[in-house]
């Protein structure tokens, strides 16, 4: 379906978007002397990348099969590996989220003092990797970007993290690497089977989707992909790396981790695992749904018990991702749109909360809920925005997460009413832990002496996030529109 493209842009915008951050990273590494230059370089590159994404969003029209733009050239001919980047609505939304959050990350990384050049270079490499993941249509290329995105995060946690950073970085790295090795195995297995069958060897997803597989083969290969995606998402019970990694990562690292990196797992499910193995998928959907519900409740409960704000937010992310997967497992148009929208809004709201945690930590030097109190009395603007994002995160109508949640629930109810009912009950859990968070952080007698309110840089970070939070809550059509065709296509292949 990729070959039938009629609107090929003459200029390789996608490649430019993917490799612009990488070249920026190289410049940062070469030019580590001046910290100031590195910061501005990082920010400029991030803004430019975002600009390209916005430009593509506004200027390109999708063709009949939903692709905005495609680039396809031969890369390693011997193994028929192609350099194939393509963007449809789902990828577009993820790309917009990524490029936008990267600008936020750059601004948030401003106060970093140690190895500034390296820090910004790693952030930019990470951005390249993430964009590659969302755009690659060739499995080897995808795998390459998948690992490229992993490595900078390892260093970000390992070098700039908190006290137990080495342990957390190692856990994160080994866990996700173990998963992705299974995926590599499955990729090669599928490649060989497909090649034997058709005589035409290819790593392209669209080609491989046409492979005739026995159910047993499907299950094995599906399991391989699932290992990578379930760990990255992270689905319960493979989730324990996230709270550790998040609580030890520096502010920017945790923002990128929850805002973007864990989305790649779900994206992989949607883009690769589901279309390649339709039979295994339809057999496994009830299991997915069950695990998603378990995640929703289990993580909700865990979040309620945490004292470290970052761990709380990590568990809340796992819980939200549970709802996302629930929507996918329901396999209806509305639920899928809701899931994808929820991914975006979760990225925005939780990202904003994590950014604010970093700001609070800069002021009070603690993230412990037992030690925080009465922030509102001292920093009302900061507190008001914190409240806004926390309320969005607990699913208040009119703010970001609600739009996604209600679509997921409405869509899920159409096929699996019981799941939807349990899902809506799980949403109360979000209220329980979020209200506990607000109660401890904002209300009460202030315990600390003087706390400054927001600085201009912090305003600059938070205002766009706040605007997006409201926008997603009130007019999500901007993001739902591009999702229509690809979601319909994705669902069309299955009963």
């Amino acid at each position, binding site marked *: 379906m990729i070959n039938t493209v009629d609107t090929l842009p003459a200029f390789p915008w996608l490649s430019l978007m993917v490799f612009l951050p990488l070249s920026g990273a190289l410049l940062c590494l070469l030019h580590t002397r001046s910290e100031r230059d590195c910061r501005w370089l990082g920010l400029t590159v991030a803004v430019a990348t975002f600009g390209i994404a916005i430009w593509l969003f506004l200027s390109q029209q999708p063709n009949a099969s939903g692709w905005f733009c495609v680039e396809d050239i031969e890369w390693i001919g011997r193994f028929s590996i192609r350099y194939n980047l393509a963007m449809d609505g789902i990828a577009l939304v993820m790309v917009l989220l990524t490029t936008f959050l990267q600008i936020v990350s750059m601004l948030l990384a401003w106060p970093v003092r140690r190895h500034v050049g390296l820090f910004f270079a790693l952030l930019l490499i990470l951005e390249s990797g993430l964009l590659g993941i969302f755009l690659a249509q060739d499995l080897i290329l995808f795998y390459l970007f998948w690992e490229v995105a992993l490595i900078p995060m390892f260093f970000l946690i390992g070098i700039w993290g908190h006290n137990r950073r080495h342990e957390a970085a190692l856990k994160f790295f080994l866990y996700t690497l173990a998963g992705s090795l299974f995926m590599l195995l499955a990729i090669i297995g599928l490649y060989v089977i497909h090649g034997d069958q058709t005589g035409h060897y290819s790593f392209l997803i669209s080609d491989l989707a046409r492979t005739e597989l026995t159910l047993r083969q499907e299950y094995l290969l599906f399991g391989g992909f699932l290992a990578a995606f379930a760990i990255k998402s992270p689905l319960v019970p493979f989730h324990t790396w996230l709270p550790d990694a998040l609580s030890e990562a520096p502010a920017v690292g945790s923002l990128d981790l929850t805002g973007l990196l864990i989305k790649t797992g779900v994206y992989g499910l949607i883009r690769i695992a589901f279309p390649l193995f339709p039979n295994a998928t339809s057999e496994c959907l009830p299991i997915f749904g069950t695990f998603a519900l378990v995640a929703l409740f*289990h993580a909700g409960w865990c979040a309620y018990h945490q004292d470290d704000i970052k761990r709380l937010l990590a568990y809340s992310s796992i819980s939200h991702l549970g709802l996302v997967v629930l929507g996918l497992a329901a396999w209806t148009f509305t639920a899928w749109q809701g899931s994808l929208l929820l991914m975006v809004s979760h990225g925005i709201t939780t990202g904003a909360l994590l950014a604010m945690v970093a700001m609070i930590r800069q002021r009070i030097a603690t993230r412990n809920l037992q030690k925080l109190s*009465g922030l509102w009395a001292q920093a009302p603007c900061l507190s008001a925005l914190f409240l806004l994002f926390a309320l969005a995160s607990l699913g208040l109508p009119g703010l970001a997460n609600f739009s996604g949640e209600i679509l997921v629930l409405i869509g899920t109810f159409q096929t699996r009413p019981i799941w939807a009912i349990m899902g809506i009950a799980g949403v109360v859990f979000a209220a329980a832990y979020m209200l506990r968070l607000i109660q401890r952080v904002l209300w009460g007698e202030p315990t600390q002496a003087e706390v400054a309110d927001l600085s201009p840089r912090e305003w600059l970070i938070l205002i766009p996030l706040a605007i997006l939070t409201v926008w997603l809550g009130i007019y999500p059509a901007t993001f739902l529109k591009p999702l229509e065709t690809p979601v319909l296509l994705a669902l069309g292949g299955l009963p």
Partner: protein
Amino acid sequence: MNETLLFLIPLLPLVCALLNMVFGMRLPRLFTETLAVTGVAGSCALTLLFWDYATEGGTKAVLFNWLDSGTFQIAFALNFDRLAAPMTLMVTGVATFIHLYAVGYMHKDADYGRFFGLLNLFVFAMLTIILADNLLVLFLGWEGVGLCSYALIGFWYQKDQNTRAGTKAFLVTRSGDVFLGIALLWLFALTGTLTISEINALAQTISPGVVIALTLLLLVGACGKSAQLPLMTWLADAMAGPTPVSALIHAATMVTAGVYLLCRLFPLISLSAVGMTAITAVGALTALYAATCALAQQEIKRVLAYSTMSQIGYMFMAIGAGTVTGAMFHLLTHAFFKAALFMAAGAVIHLAGDENDLFKMGGIGRRGPQELFWVFLASAACLAGIPLTGGFFSKDGILLAVFSHPDPLYEFFWLIGMLTALLTSFYTFRLVYLIFAGRSRGRNQPHAVSRLMRWPIWPLTILGLAAGLINLPAFFGGQEWLHHWYGKLAGQTLTPDHHTEWLLMIITSSLVLIGWAVAHFYYRNVEKPRLNWLAIFLLQGWRTDRLIEQLLIRPFEAMARFCALGCDRVLLDGTLDGSAGLAKSWGVLARRLVTGRLSTYLSAFAWGFLIFIGWFLLRLLK
């Protein structure tokens, strides 16, 4: 005129709220206050201006599509119809007076921007509920109301108790919202729409069993917001907020949202007799429960809170008995006199020197303006249902509807309603006596009560007294204006014979008078509360808080601990750490082989070689 202008009614308070929240503290105080009052008053004026839109089946206005996904199409749409119009007018009108009162009440509070912003936002959310054309927009307002009550109850956030009360209110109402949410999902799955009028039109096509389930779900949802059994525990604690907030949220408007929801979906819920009986039962039991609790309360605002709960129980009974008019009529009268009562109570608390405890009041009338006593007494008379006041007519209408219901079970509910009327009269006059009778028992210095805190009470009191006129029964020569106004939406029409009506009225009136007499006898001169076990039991609201803590909160927290520690820390992380440890210990074992001695390596090599050769030789031999 363009019907999209209807959006101005809710948006005006919203805009003022946002302005006050964002710029409130940078603007002069007077400006903020004026803005807040103007927002609500303007919206009230607009309601009157647009009144004609409500006639002839109402007017719909669509702003833009909110959610748009396949068959799921939800627009920001308003429906200004005959049910919504009086309610809108009441909310905006009462809220205007409360805002004025709040200007006086909060004049020393430094955080005025946040306060008035939230107050306006609250009015916006309530108007959204009232005017919503579809259930999702209604849900937006529904949750918005929950949020505002949360933030306003915990307005004085430095005291932990206040914010805890707010959190409790939010969580309890949100648990009710889960059921409303389920009903919403189910209704969409059944009818393919969330537009209220379409759902009501399609209600006949839904199978009876499902309608029962839906009604029960909606009932629980309504119970959460309206503080009915079993989700009532939050309301009494919610009195931690500033008094104008109590007046606005917990008397006049927010708690009536549940009643309004059931009225909105009346064509649906009236299809299920079981559901209607359940609604009446919940209403009757709550009315009685709350009235008993109010008997023993020692704080002025808690008495009023329980009385609210009890009166809303009456409204539920009305809906269950099939008369939307009865419910809405009581809702309107109750809103007037309860708001007046709360505002007067705020003034009383000021005069008592910020003292909430009834047993430290007494003789308050002598400390401040005499008029306070009269407005309080008048509103209390409405609450107690003294004949010819507004509260009397509306309550009587409900009891009549319940009494004339054909189902014999309703006679039992009617008895409960009568008993509650007796108790209501008793605790209301107990309140009046404890506040105004005798000599002063408190020691605090009174604060002055400003004019802004006094005169907004007057119009509300008068409205409360005269509210009977809006639905004066034919028996008194009235036209039942409200009933005719609602038209098709009004539920069943009551045509009792005069004999029954006389009888009922005499019974209720005598019960009210008995209640007064008993209160007069006991509380004319009281120094200290008499605390026996029953009083303590009632004071603690039948110990429901304890029960809920034992039954729900403790297990929830235990489960949280189990999930976080038992499951994640021990089981999952343990497995991971265990496998990592296993790999490590293998490494240690294997390391022993590497001695660093050449000769060991060489001999191992030689032995290996020999074994290899030997194996090949054996293969050859075979």
